[in-house]
């Protein structure tokens, strides 16, 4: 009943000087599922994302996306294959409006040759952009400079931009951090919808235990750069090692 793996990481390691941020990490993200990644601050979650999408070269190990070895590909090349990430610090184009942020995220931009680079974008792009801005609740603010939006709104815009790009797999780095708690349930629903309706596989770093238990089909837990546990949400919630890691770290 297990779906085939869309992402596979085998024995990946990454150090910064003396700091071992990731050590021998292996994991599998099955196609169509929502997989959670938890762990105390500094346990190496963001580093793992960075090595998967090509920001940092791996010290050791391999990464496979849809069966293809991608460890030596560069960030934009991996993105064009259909694996996208959002940033923990939230990154949008602050000097552009929400609509422009969305348009520039269209996958049509991936096709850039001499004839397309100088052209416009077809009206379908605007329709899709409006739908998605509506989906995350930013339609009204679509013509404001996105740098003037609140942090939470920027986070939602970044999510909408990622959806606009139509990835097969989306890596989200703490999507609920900094979001008004009253809006978190709405965001969880949208993440689930993106998974079910748009068919995007999600791999989500999440600090908030309640959120990840609600969201994920299965969960990996990192601590001190090592993979500590893997299982269903219930199993992880009751895993003594996980409980210790969280209590010990705070």
């Amino acid at each position, binding site marked *: 009943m297990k779906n085939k793996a869309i992402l596979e990481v085998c024995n990946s390691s990454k150090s910064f000087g003396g700091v071992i941020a990731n050590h021998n990490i292996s994991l599998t993200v099955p196609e169509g599922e929502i997989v959670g990644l938890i762990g105390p601050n500094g346990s190496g979650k963001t580093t793992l994302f960075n090595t998967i*999408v090509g*920001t940092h070269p791996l010290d050791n190990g391999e990464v496979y996306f849809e069966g293809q070895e991608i460890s030596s590909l*560069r*960030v*934009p*090349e991996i*993105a*064009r294959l259909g694996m*996208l*990430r959002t*940033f923990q610090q939230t*990154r*949008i*184009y*602050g*000097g*552009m*409006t929400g*609509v*422009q942020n969305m*348009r*520039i*995220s269209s*996958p*049509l*931009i*991936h096709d*850039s040759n001499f004839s*397309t*680079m*100088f*052209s*416009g*974008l*077809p*009206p379908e792009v*605007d329709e899709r952009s409006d739908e998605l801005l*509506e989906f995350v609740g930013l*339609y*009204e*603010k*679509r*013509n*404001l*400079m996105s*740098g003037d939006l609140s942090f939470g709104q920027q986070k939602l815009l970044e999510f909408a*931009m990622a959806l606009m*790009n139509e990835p097969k797999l989306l890596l989200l780095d703490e999507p609920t951090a900094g979001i008004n708690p009253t809006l978190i349930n709405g965001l969880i629903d949208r993440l689930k919808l993106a998974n079910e309706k748009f068919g995007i596989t999600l791999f989500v770093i999440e600090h908030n235990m309640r959120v990840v238990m609600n969201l994920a089909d299965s969960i990996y837990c990192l601590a001190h750069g090592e993979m500590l546990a893997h299982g269903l949400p219930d199993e992880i919630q009751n895993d003594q090692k996980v409980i210790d890691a969280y209590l010990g770290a705070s």
Partner: protein
Amino acid sequence: MSTTSTGNTGSTNPLLYIVILAFGIAAPFVMPAYIQQVSFLWIFILFALTWDLQGGQMGYNSFGNIVFFGTGMYVSASTQVALYFDLGAWNESGGENTFIHATDEYFIGLAAGLVLSGIVAAALAAFLGSGILGLRGQYFAICTLGLSVAAGEIAAGIDLIGAGSGMSTPVWPDAADSVIERGTFFYILCFMLAVATFIACKYLYSGRFGMVLNAIRDDEDKAEAMGIHTTRYKALSWTISAFFLGISGAIMGNIIGFIDPVDVAFTGATFGVWMVLMAILGGKGTLWGPVLGAAIFHIMQELFWTYFLGWQRVALGLLIILIVVFLPQGILGSLREHFPEWFGHRLEPVAVEDEK
């Protein structure tokens, strides 16, 4: 329902175009005594527009764009001469005294020079760009500054193009005066080139090209993470600027009539800096800012030369300080900051939509 509705400077009143075009066409008749100043105005507008293509729209401050101007100047002059004479002998003799271009030779040579100057400058930018556009921020800026300093020195060392003693351009054939005067002829070239540059920029900023440049400016890492071919767009942006700058150099060389490697061609300390200032003064990252900035700067500069003779550089220095302190976003940038709704940045209530 246009397919390219992303204008980042709001819409422009068509009256503005009519006024500017009317001024451009009427200037040689109305103010013939100032024809060279107005010619320079068009070139300055081109300087600011092409600088802004990187500095404002893409966030890459280049202090080296003057390299393409000077390159175009030498390429054109050399082409004009070498098509009919021996280039080395021309420069050794000081040029115009011994070799005279016939009327048709003059204009065919000039046409070839204009075309080649654009192409060679563009090729140089593509080559340099693939090397140094990988540098970010200040490193890129410093590297381009180095290029602009080196270019003058290199030109001053090449005997074939007159080395440090410079090079004359072919003399305007007197026979052509019966058709058009020299000043008017070059004025028309300047005007047409500036208009072409403006149209090119306007077109680029209306489609995905401009959006990608803005994305690179706002967050290049994000643009890469979204799968954009950033390197391609960066190199092409520089190449396009270099193309127009190269042709402008070709025209300028012929207007001035004599090319000194440091004082006329690779003028990093004057034109090279002014192109930055003009774009910043008007508002970098906007279509009209560089145009406005160039016009104001040029008028100020002419006034300083007229009324503060001897102190003009001090006055210009003061102007620079005032711009940076009081208008860091430039004129249009400050307007956009204080009146965002004039530029279309406002809340839009949700339209009634019935699809579900």
